[in-house]
């Protein structure tokens, strides 16, 4: 079998009627079987390795978020991209117990996945980098993943026809603010320099199993926790360990400053701070703020 090159394995996700071709830099799929060896008295070795839980799979990838683009290949419709951010935002505030998955296809291998973690990293004047992990549980009799790994010709793909990544999320015009003020304030009301933002959210689900079926019949959404790790040049005093009862908004804008996506942290609380300096360097401070849903 011929080796498959990176440009022959597109990563495509679908949620409802929306389709997004991910600008992914790397992707990995892993599968695991929950097996246990069966030993018995009077028998040398094991009888067999038997399943004690369902087979699971997970797919993780990192990507640059594109904020607008082609969302319906059949109709040529364009619109808001970044399905994952929308899924994360709606899920964390969801009051529905049951949740549906996102369809993921990677080199002709596909599966239905539940978003288990989503992170964003903003460094000075750089493209925004996202990482996600989906848990693929399968459903009923359906396996977590299906299909054979196959190369797909990159010629068949249509994508925004531009040489500059104008629609990509970029730190250039992005902001991290509370409702009315910068996210970094000192006791003397000085605004600090926020040098990087690393945001992440993790979701927890409960798969509902039925006897006689290997894979869960449905999933119940339980809770989410999100945090932002912020690096800055001042010692933050504007937010206390008890929080400040304000929402923090991470507003990511496209490189051409035309489109934006929003991540809203609901009244986060400071969970830890660090102050660090090393020889021949400048003092750096870091803090972590956390919200729970």
């Amino acid at each position, binding site marked *: 079998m011929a080796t498959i090159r990176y*440009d022959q394995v597109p990563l495509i996700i679908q949620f409802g009627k929306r389709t997004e*071709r991910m600008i992914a830099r790397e992707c990995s799929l892993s599968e695991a079987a929950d097996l246990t060896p069966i030993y018995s008295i009077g028998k040398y070795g094991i009888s067999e390795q038997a399943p004690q839980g369902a087979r699971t799979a997970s797919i993780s990838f990192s*990507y*640059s978020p594109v904020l607008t683009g082609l969302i319906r290949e059949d109709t040529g419709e364009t619109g808001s991209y970044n399905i994952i951010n929308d899924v994360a935002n709606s899920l964390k505030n969801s009051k529905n117990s049951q949740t549906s998955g996102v369809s993921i296809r990677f080199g002709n291998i596909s599966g239905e996945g539940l978003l288990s973690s989503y992170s964003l990293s903003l*460094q000075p004047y750089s493209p925004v980098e996202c990482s996600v992990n989906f848990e693929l549980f399968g459903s009923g009799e359906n396996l977590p993943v299906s299909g054979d790994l196959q190369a797909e010709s990159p010629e068949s793909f249509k*994508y925004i026809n531009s*040489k*500059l990544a104008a629609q990509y999320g970029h730190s*250039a015009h992005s902001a991290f603010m509370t409702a009315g003020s910068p996210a970094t304030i000192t006791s003397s009301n000085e605004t600090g320099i926020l040098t990087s933002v690393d945001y992440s959210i993790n979701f927890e689900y409960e798969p509902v199993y039925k006897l006689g079926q290997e894979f869960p019949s449905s999933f119940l959404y339980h809770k989410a926790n999100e945090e932002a790790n912020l690096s800055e040049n001042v010692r933050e005093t504007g937010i206390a360990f008890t929080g400040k009862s304000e929402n923090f908004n991470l507003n990511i804008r496209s490189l051409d400053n035309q489109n934006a996506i929003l991540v809203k942290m609901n009244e986060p609380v400071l969970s830890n701070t660090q102050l660090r300096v090393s020889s021949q360097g*400048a003092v750096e401070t870091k803090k972590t703020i956390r919200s729970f849903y």
Partner: protein
Amino acid sequence: MLSRIRREGQKLAVNGSGINGLQSLSFGYQSTAQPVIPLGVERVMYAPSSPQTASISANSLMVYDDFFAQFTGESPFSGQVNYKDQTIKFTEAYLSSYSCSCAIGEIPSLGMQAEIYGEMGTGNYFDFGETTPHDTDLQVAGYNSIDINLDEFNTNRVNSFALDIQVPRTPIYAFNDKAPSEVISNSPMDISLQFNIEADDYKIKNMRFVPEETVFRNVSLKINKNNYIWDDALSTFANNLRANIKVFHFKSLLLVSEQYQSDSNNNVGINFVLKGTTLR
């Protein structure tokens, strides 16, 4: 008709003062735009991957005074380069290295490199008005007008010296800004002073001389005007003051390397390097 730009068609001005004795000039930038090469997509897109900076470097003869040494401090400088009918301006340039050297048969020369964190290009970022020459009365230093005070040279002839000062800078960028919010002038500055001598009784140290026989040297370098005419009406101190272009005093520089060199056509030469650090 073919045209070209010769040396007389260019000018470098820093903070409004023209730089004299310029021997070479280089400035430019390397774009930080990087391709985003995704899985399974046929097109390559470009996006800035880090803040953009530029750099400028220049070498000049030591004439009148040592113009660049003043920028080893915390202040940035702005400037402009004129060539033919073009004007390139730059702002927020921070000196990152400074050098001064001379050898027998040469005029002392200066070198500098600076990182540009502000702007560089044809935009009208500032207006110095008409740039003024730094000094029209050139007073050139020569290898014969240098005083070096170091114990080794009573019997060992100095062929050349080269001074290099590294000036570390740390830009602090906000994650959503293209220019640094501040530039820290870091400490310490590394100083390297290299001498080449024709040896007579110079004694090379034992390679394990640190720590038992660690060698520290106090060095002074005085670079005087080559064409200064001694004025008998003035005191020796006043004459020295007028004759002098640049004085370097270094205390307790550590001897860090010695290199013996010889070949069939030349006398024995020894290179040795002294290093030091200066705290801000």
